[in-house]
Structure formats: structure tokens, C-alpha cells
């Protein structure tokens, strides 16, 4: 278990003191504050009910479910290839990454493997969707604190990535491009050169953002030491992705459980941060965007020749069995527990989405914080509503 850093200890003591003050000091009348479901800071329709004492949160509870679409039930009446259309819409900012673990689970049950070329292209598109997803986060982060410039930079540069995804797959937001056994199409002509240029530009965007936002004093004072989550609490709640690594846990499914994609062919680094506060979570995401750019640049140079689709039957029946495959998606661990009975469609699919676990920690982490910090903590936890409700 990771030991608490000095900053975490101080923050702990401060929160303990805040709790004590709540009990001893002024006997004020509490009030209940409703944040959402339309609050712009919530990226959708999450609602937070917070019980306040003065400026401090005594108790807070998120109320999800405003966007529940019942995908787990719907998968039971669709065929395997049709399911990818549904799961594209879970985390709509990184859609391609949603398809991959499901396809891998189906491939695992069918005991087939995509050809090497398809695997490398999958990895590239996976990382591009991570860049598109997280660069929006980095831009939006400033807006939560009143800084508007990063948002413009983010939307400008993210547009290039979306154009790339569109030219390769045909869909800007919902590519529906991954197939059991490979990919729908090969890359278009000139795409590799174009991608190299865009990804180099995205590295510049990360540098700009680091200068503008992360070096900003106001930003740091709003973020540092706020919303500290120690490692053991993060693990117990199943926090994943950057939220887990910001608490000092060195765990990345891309490195530690490479389920047949090409991450091991590139040289990159898993970043961790010992602090576990809001700032650490945002900083980790910035570094990860850089690493994603590096992965894409390296993989673009080593796309092997060959087919993009292995031989699969025309009508896909997945043999009886159960498989759980999870990958490190932009938001964290995204996994599908697929149960097949040998039919055209799955018998049951349990969708393990990252935001559901990431947001379930809010009652714990919001206790004792001040009202303006609610927004920054929620922003730093980074959730997509479709990923909570599914």
C-alpha cells in the first residue's frame, strides 16, 4: 500500500479539523443545495444534492439515472455485430475505444484474432479517441474555473483529430468501425502523413495548455490539496484510469494486461502522481495525452502490411462461454462481461463502465469541502453521463 505523502497528511488533518468545527462551532441551520440536472459544469444531466452547513458540504449525494438507456437489456435482443452500434454511445467522446473491449471479448470466445495490421490500426484509433476525449477535458477544465482560452484551443485542435477519425472511419463521434475479426475498412490514402502532422500539433497543444493553465497560480490554488483521495480508498471504490494513477497506484491496463493490441510495440510511460488531489488528476491526464501522441507517432511508422480482416463466418455465432475483457479507456477501465449461449446474440452483457465507479466516490470525497470546490472536484474526476447511466 502506498504511504501517504506529506500533502495528503496535511489535507487529512485539515479535513478532520473541518469536521470537528462543523460539530463544535456555530450551530447554523443547514440548507440543501441542488446542483443540476442542468448545471453546465456537469457535462450532462447529473444531479448533486448537497446538504450544506454555511459554506461547507455536510453530505452530498449524486443522483444519476437521467440518461439511462438500458443497454444491458438491449444487447440481449441484438446480434453480436449490432451491439457495437449501441455501445458506441456509452462514452460518446471516445466512441471507438468503447467498441474495442467488446469486440475483443467476442473474439476471445470465438478463439480468433485480428491480423497484425488491424491490431495496430485499432490501437492507433483507440489512442486517437483518447486524445479527442481528454483534450476536451483539458479545455473544459479551464471553463470550470472561469478561464475560457483553453477551451478555444482545445476545440480548435480536437477538431483535427475528429476529422482524422472521420476520414478513416466515416463517423466523427460514432465510428462503428470495429468488427469481430478485424476492421471494416483499411486506412484511406494519405491518412498516415496527415495524422503525423496533426499529432505533432497536438503535442504543441499540450505544451500550450501546460503553460496557460497548469502553471496558473489561481488554477493551482483552486486545485492543489483539494479533494484528496488516498490510494486505498481509490482502490476500494474501483476508481480507474487517471483517477487511480493520481493517487499513486501504478496500474495501467494497456501495460499490465495487453489484451492483444499493439501498445507493447511502442515506447511510452505510465505516469503516476503521489498527491491524489484534483490537480494531480488533471496533471496525469495532460501527461497521458502526450504519451498517447507518442504512441500514435511510433505506431504510424510500423503499421505492418497484410489483411485487415481475418476469416470469419458470414453470419457470426459466438460459441458458448463467458469472457471478461477490459481495456484502459479514456475514462478508465472499461470492460464487458459477455455470456454467450451459442446464439447470434449475447445472452447477457455486463458493462463495466469507468465513470460509474469514478462517480460513486463523490459522497465520500465531497464531505467537508467548500461549495466552489464541488465543481472543481467533479471536473477533475471527469465523467461522461452516458458512461454512468449506460
Amino acid at each position, binding site marked *: 500500500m502506498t504511504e501517504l505523502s506529506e500533502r495528503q497528511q496535511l489535507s487529512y488533518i485539515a479535513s478532520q479539523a473541518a469536521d470537528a468545527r462543523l460539530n463544535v462551532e456555530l450551530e447554523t441551520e443547514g440548507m440543501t443545495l441542488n446542483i443540476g440536472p442542468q448545471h453546465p459544469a456537469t457535462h450532462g444531466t447529473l444531479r448533486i444534492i448537497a446538504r450544506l452547513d454555511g459554506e461547507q458540504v455536510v453530505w452530498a449525494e449524486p443522483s444519476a439515472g437521467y440518461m439511462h438507456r438500458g443497454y444491458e*437489456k438491449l444487447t440481449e435482443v441484438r446480434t453480436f455485430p449490432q451491439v457495437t452500434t449501441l455501445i458506441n454511445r456509452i462514452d460518446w467522446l471516445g466512441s471507438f475505444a468503447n467498441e474495442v473491449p467488446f469486440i475483443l471479448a467476442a473474439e476471445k470466445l470465438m478463439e480468433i484474432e485480428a491480423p497484425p495490421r488491424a491490431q495496430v490500426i485499432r490501437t492507433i484509433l483507440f489512442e486517437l479517441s483518447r486524445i479527442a476525449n481528454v483534450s476536451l477535458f483539458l479545455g473544459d477544465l479551464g471553463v470550470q474555473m472561469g478561464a475560457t482560452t483553453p477551451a478555444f484551443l482545445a476545440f480548435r485542435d480536437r477538431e483535427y483529430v475528429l476529422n482524422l477519425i472521420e476520414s478513416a472511419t466515416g463517423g466523427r463521434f460514432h465510428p462503428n468501425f470495429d468488427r469481430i475479426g478485424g476492421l471494416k475498412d483499411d486506412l484511406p490514402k494519405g491518412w498516415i502523413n496527415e495524422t503525423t502532422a496533426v499529432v505533432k500539433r497536438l503535442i504543441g497543444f499540450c505544451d500550450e495548455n501546460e503553460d496557460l493553465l497548469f502553471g496558473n497560480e489561481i488554477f493551482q490554488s483552486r486545485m492543489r490539496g483539494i479533494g484528496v483521495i488516498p490510494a486505498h480508498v481509490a482502490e*476500494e471504490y474501483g476508481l480507474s484510469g487517471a483517477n487511480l494513477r493520481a493517487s499513486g497506484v501504478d496500474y495501467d491496463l494497456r501495460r499490465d*494486461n495487453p489484451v492483444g493490441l499493439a501498445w507493447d510495440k511502442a515506447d511510452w510511460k505510465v505516469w503516476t502522481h503521489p498527491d491524489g488531489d484534483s490537480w494531480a488528476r488533471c496533471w496525469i491526464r495532460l501527461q497521458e495525452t502526450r504519451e498517447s501522441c507518442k504512441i500514435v507517432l511510433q505506431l504510424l511508422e510500423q503499421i505492418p502490411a497484410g489483411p485487415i480482416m481475418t476469416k470469419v463466418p458470414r453470419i457470426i455465432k459466438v460459441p458458448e462461454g463467458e469472457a471478461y475483457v477490459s481495456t484502459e479507456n479514456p475514462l478508465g477501465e472499461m470492460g464487458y462481461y459477455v455470456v454467450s449461449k451459442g446464439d447470434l446474440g449475447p445472452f447477457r452483457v455486463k458493462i463495466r463502465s469507468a465513470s460509474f465507479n469514478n462517480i460513486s466516490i463523490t459522497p465520500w470525497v465531497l464531505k467537508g469541502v467548500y461549495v466552489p470546490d464541488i465543481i472543481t472536484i467533479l471536473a477533475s474526476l471527469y465523467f461522461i453521463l452516458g458512461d454512468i447511466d449506460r
Partner: protein
Amino acid sequence: MAPLSDTETTDDAAAETQALPGDGLREGIVDDLRARIGDALIEFEIDPNTDLTVRVATDAWAETAAALKLAGFSFFSFLSAIDWMPSPYGKGEDDPTVEKEPIDMTIKQGVCGGETRMQVFARLTDLDRHVGITIKADVADDHQVVDSWTGSYAGANWHERECHEMFGIGFNGHPDLRNMYLPGDFEGHPLKKDFPLLARMVKPWPGIVDVEPMPEKAEEIKDEPLPLTDEDGAIDVDATVEATGDDASPPDPDATTAVAAATGDEATHVGEADESDGEKADDES
């Protein structure tokens, strides 16, 4: 962790004599768990170098969580349930032109077996050894309650709420089993197999007509009429296409006959009430 060796396929006998490194790891975990919970560990299945599934007694469900947490599985991934009963409403790929075969309603459990219709299952990960484990337990048919995991893993709170709402399984010792998604007075548990998916009940899945024949069969049936345009209650392909075009009416094959009957009525009653017929025609156009 040793690199995944998917290409190496060894049969059971060979795997026993020549254990791969990953197997040793997972076998060690099972032995460790058996030492902690004893006979409550009913069954286990190791997918060499990939996965590990265990089934424990219902009474030991919470005890298993505590034991695995001590054994190093600190990361809580998810908790949910499976309803093993086949759906009495059939599946989406049912062809409406073919007469429905009676559905085989025998309940057959998956990996690691089981005896009841409902099973709870959860997933934990050991972040140091990079190994995941799926834990399953039966839920008694007459008393669908298991112990809560919230004592060991605080993150189980929301998952158990969701599971309670979707499957109707109770969790002993859970602090607050409110609904997450549905209104509090909603009746039924949507992810149970006997809960009908109403969207499918009222309108056949239009995706059915997308399924093309296999290439070798395509030649045989090229000259025959399309199987989907017969008369008795089947989907009319043209009607379906039109309906998806304007989205006005469901692709009901009776609709066209109803219109024909209505116009026939008009013809017979044309002398009796001109105005009302005119209105009728307007409505239908």
C-alpha cells in the same frame, strides 16, 4: 506477469503435467482462498494465463470478499447478477415468418455451474500481481437475498443498488437500497429475463430484414419470392422500408388491408353521407 501466450493451446492432461507460470499464480490464489474460507469454495475454473473464476457458497459471499481483500485483491471492479432462465419472449433474431419453436426453458448455468436461476457475480483485481478474479454465488430461488459487500468494498454500494433494482436481489447489511434509475414505485425488475422488452413487443425489429442470405443459398432462392412478403401476419418488406422512411406508422401488414376495407366502405355508403365521407378521406390522406 508473463506475456500472454494465446498461441499455445495445451489440453488438460498436458496442462497438469507442465504447468505454465500464469497457471501457478492462479492455482496459488485458489489454494490461498481455500485456506481462508474452507469448503465454502465450491468450484473453480482456470483459463490458463488469462482468467480465473470461482464459485462460493451463498452463505460465504461476504466472507469471500473479506478473504480476497486480505489476499491482495484490493481493487473492486464490479458486482452484478445473471438471470440464467432463457427469455420466454425469444430473442431478437427470431424470424417472424418462421413459426416459433417452443423455447427450451431449461435453466443451464455457465462457467463453474450452479443450482439456482439467479447468480450474483463480481470481479476483483490484484493490482500488484495484475490478476483478476470473477467470484460467483447462487441466490436461492425462494429467498433472493445475499450479504452485502459494502463492509469490505465501499464501492460495492452503487453496484448493489443497481443490482437490487435490475434483478430484485436483496443485500443484507446494505446501508441504502434505493433505486438508482427508475422511479421508486416502479414495479418489476427490468434485467430479469421474464421482464418483457416492450419496444420489441409492439414493433418487430426492423433489423431482421437486413440479414442477407448466405452466398451459397443466395443462388437457390434468387428465383423464389422473398420469404418475408407472405400473407399471414408477416412483415411486409416494402411497408417496413416506408415506415422507416416517414416514421408515421408502425409496419403493420394489417394497415394496408384496413385502408382497403375503409375505402370499400366509402364506396358503399357514398350516397348516404357525403360530408362525413369527405372528412374520412381527408383523415386518411
